[in-house]
């Protein structure tokens, strides 16, 4: 196992489909198993889209938190595609 797991914040606020998912994916590509990515989004589709993405890619959706005017979606990287 490599270094300590990281917590990254990806700010996609103001961006709409496919923005949040592609932003999340870019962070995912440069992350290690065990890392946590926190995606900030204003696109109402992001909740369902990230849920579908996590399911499909085998990663873990930890939490979706409604903030004032945006949402925070927390994903734990549990699977990396080669």
């Amino acid at each position: 196992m490599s270094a300590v797991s990281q917590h990254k914040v990806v700010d996609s606020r103001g961006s709409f489909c496919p923005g949040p998912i592609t932003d999340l994916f870019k962070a995912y590509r440069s992350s290690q198993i065990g890392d946590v990515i926190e995606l900030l989004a204003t696109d109402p589709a992001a909740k369902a889209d990230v849920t579908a993405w996590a399911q499909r890619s085998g990663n873990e959706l930890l939490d979706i938190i409604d903030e004032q005017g945006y949402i925070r979606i927390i994903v734990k990287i549990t699977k990396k595609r080669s």
Partner: protein
Amino acid sequence: MLIILSKGTMDMVYPALMIATTGATMGKEVHMFFTFWGLSAVDKKKVGSLKVAPVGNPGMPMPNILGMIPGMTAMATRMMNGRMAKAKVPSVPEMFKMAKDLGVQLHACSTTMEVMGIPKETLIDEIDDVVGAATMLSLGEGGQIIFI
């Protein structure tokens, strides 16, 4: 997943690219096949200036007949570009770069190129190859096929 793009207007090309890039982030093998007017989307000279036409598009917020007035297509295109930029949607050339970076494979239709007299050199560098329908169908076999 296979997306067949047969149209070259902005309102057709954007959805195709959005589906392609999203599919790639979800771990799908994604192919795009450009045929007929879809080849305009990957023409070096046109890719940066695709238009949206109000004529024949009753979804536009204006009486259809006004679309025939010179300048209306340019106006509708400007409006759409403005809205896209506001939603932080990248430009079409940027979307192609992103798609390529995510592993989407781009195929041009050989028959269309012959019929319309389009040499391969006029297509954007992101195009992987020039193929026929049999290759395209075998690439899409067993996956989702989307025709636009």
